[in-house]
């Protein structure tokens, strides 16, 4: 499935069904903090959607994609593509390579 992403479904379905996987991907490659921001009640803080949108924008910019700020087909297809495990340097969060140095 990873090799041949086939998104015939609409964008809403992508967002609702795969959002946690996409967040995991963004964390893995440095676009989101490693942990969710929670308030004292344990709820995700209100700024999380902003963080997520910012992550999408940075990802699209770093990968040379159209900068829409949305999980469009092109962006999701890129997320599904096989890739190098080195985090993207401009993703702004700490990477294993930053730690290495």
């Amino acid at each position: 499935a990873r090799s041949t992403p086939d998104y015939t479904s609409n964008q809403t379905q992508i967002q609702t069904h795969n959002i946690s996987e996409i967040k995991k991907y963004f964390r893995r490659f440095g676009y989101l903090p490693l942990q969710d921001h929670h308030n004292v009640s344990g709820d995700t803080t209100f700024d999380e959607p902003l963080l997520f949108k910012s992550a999408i924008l940075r990802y699209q910019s770093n990968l040379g994609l159209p900068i829409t700020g949305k999980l469009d087909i092109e962006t999701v297809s890129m997320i599904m593509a096989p890739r190098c495990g080195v985090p993207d340097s401009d993703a702004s969060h700490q990477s294993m390579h930053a730690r290495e140095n």
Partner: protein
Amino acid sequence: YVFFPGKPRWSRDVPMKLTYAFSKENLIDYVNISDIRAVFKRAFTKWGSVIPVSFVETDDYGFADIKIGFYRGDHGDGEPFDGVLGVLAHSFTPESGRFHLDAAERWAVDFKTEKSEVAVDLESVAIHEIGHLLGLSHSSVKDAVMYPTLKPRDKKLDLSLDDVNGVQALYGSNPNFTLSSLLESDISANQA
């Protein structure tokens, strides 16, 4: 092109010589080792043709500057591999020299004989990871070898101007390098 934070690079006397070796305990058994060695020799030569750095294979794994191996799952560096496709390989910034490929991938040195739909071109990945070992991070230029994704059965074997400018900003230019040779390579690749 993009550098890693702090712009790390290898700091050795010029002309610089870096050695590389394969981990004998961490190889794949379905590709001949001589084919793997030939692939990596071509990949290192490609970078060495544009910067004043030469790469020499050694049998002395312990003392090699660059240590290459195929690993599966959690292999002890805190960055476990994830099985077929997903993450293909990773390497570390100068002067660590660690170069890890995911043993779960179906690595190909020749797509005429390797028919798997999920086969990944070893030489393309080797060229990309050597860029990291030299100090280049991921580029947003889609034609660059330092672009982070590679589809199964795709190849990306030619350094782009973006790759060359990036690595030469770190190490300077190989005196034998000419821009025209790079452009000729680009033109032939485009025609192909």
